[in-house]
């Protein structure tokens, strides 16, 4: 869950868990509201190391201020990704984006990896070299729920819910 969406959803999730109080499933789900904040923020410009990333720091639109969520198609959404010791941060977070909004990935990793974004069509691929920050971007053209994964670790980094 991301940004301002966290508080109202968790309160309502608790209510709903009461509605179906008999259900262990629902109670288990309540645990999800304790997940940490995703690493989504305005980021300092960094060198473009992705051959497929069309953006450069000088021309990319400004990132949203910290108080506003990602749901504004005029702003790019920057996701900072750290891969270290076989784990990814963030790990399985769900992030809301607008259809047409630019998504920028800033990746640092301690091993060579490939970031795969299954965004429909052929998908988007960002190669990452150990120790070298990588940056790439793509735009979600259609609504849906899409996974961004570390290909070598076979782990889901974020799930983008595009509306």
């Amino acid at each position, binding site marked *: 869950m991301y940004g301002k969406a966290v508080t109202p*959803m968790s309160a309502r999730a608790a209510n709903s868990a009461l509605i179906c109080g008999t259900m262990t499933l629902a109670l*288990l789900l309540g645990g999800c509201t304790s997940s940490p904040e995703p690493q989504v923020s305005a980021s300092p410009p960094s060198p473009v190391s992705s051959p497929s990333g069309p953006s450069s720091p000088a021309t990319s639109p400004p990132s949203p201020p910290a108080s506003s969520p990602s749901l504004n198609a005029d702003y790019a959404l920057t996701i900072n990704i750290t891969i270290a010791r076989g784990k990814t941060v963030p790990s399985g977070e769900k992030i809301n984006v607008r259809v047409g909004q630019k998504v920028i990935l800033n990746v640092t990793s301690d091993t060579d990896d490939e970031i795969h974004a299954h965004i429909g069509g052929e998908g988007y691929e960002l190669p990452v070299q150990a120790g070298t920050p990588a940056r790439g971007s793509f735009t979600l053209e259609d609504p849906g729920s899409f*996974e961004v994964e570390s290909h070598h670790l076979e782990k889901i980094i974020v799930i983008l819910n595009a509306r």
Partner: protein
Amino acid sequence: MLVPLHGIASRHDLPLPFSFVVIGAVLALTISFVILIFAWRHPRFERVGGHPMPGLTAVVDNPIVRLVARVLVLATYAWAGLAMMFGQDLLTNPIFGFVYVWMWVGLVPISLLLGQFWRATNPLRSIHRGLCALARVDPEQGLATLPGWAGVWPAAVGLFGFGWLELVQPDRTTLAVLRLWVLVWLVILVLGAIVFGQRWIGAADPFEVYASTLAQMSIWRRVGDEVRLVNPLAGLNAWHAPPGATAVVAALLGSTAFDSFTNTSWWIQGVQNSNVPAVVWGTAGLMAMIIIVFVSFSLGAAWMGRYGDRPAADYPRLMVGSLLPIVLGYIVAHYATLLIVEGQRTAINFSDPLGRGWNVFGSAEMGVNSAIFNHPTAIALVQLCAIVGGHVFGIVCAHEKAVALLPPDRAVRGQLPLLLVMVGFTCAGLLLLFSP
């Protein structure tokens, strides 16, 4: 094309809006109690009724029609088998969509629209029948008799196996893994049919039991020797669930719920950052989900034993039909877009099973129409209606059974725990689609 980590689709349904979850839960709870308190007090569907269809019966019982249907289905399987044995180990190989979409999801509309079609055309039965014809033995005759209590228990185990393959098995979209599973399935089913006779296939084939169970909700039902057009509620009410049917239904509901559950951030994060291998988590989670469904439903139904004149252990099997509409609602809500979008992709790839640029059925040049994804609100509405609609039908079925099985003055009290369990399943289904 990048291969997704899990499953075959790279694009998934958006989470159900939370307002829909609340609306659905309130509707489910309200309608349940309205039905419980105000509905009929005497059984309404004691007889199936319906309209006899003598012409249709003659057509479906015609030996040539049956033979043609069997040959067509067998040929479709042989074509898929060709792709599996000699095709490329890529997602463009139609075998993956054939197994995970056409078979697993496609059998549902087939069974609802065509009734017991799968039982009549199951390629395993055709293979077994062919072997028996070669050996000049009666396909009904085996070397041993399968005990009656076995019911469909073997298929419940098989459905757990398929759920495991679909949701837990690493590299499930590679040919080596799929070939092994298909081989095991063929050997167990065909050898078992030789040992126990044809009855084994009806007891152990997960796909046939899945199809024939869901076909209980079809508008077509065979009564005696004739096919009738029936009210699905009356048809479902007439179902005599075999031993193990509760486990079959729990496996269907539990594995569908687990599919959604593995998509929550809570689960992904927990499993990915755990030192315990993901396979262990997946196996335990899938089993736990099925057991939760099985135990909670069995306890809710067994409560009726306090008010009726049968042993408590009889009631889960008598009542299990009322879970089928909920299962159907879950399946529609979870897999409808998968069937529509990935089903098309499978149809396209089916023209070129070996990846050599063939266009045998003329479908290879078609594009996948995924426009349905551009209407997320409509998808969410269909999901909500499927879950709540399935719940309402389930509650109506449970009420009908309860007034038939319990004395009129005690029917309401007796079915209350089961009703709460069903409301719980429905709320959990909605919450899982909200997928936090």
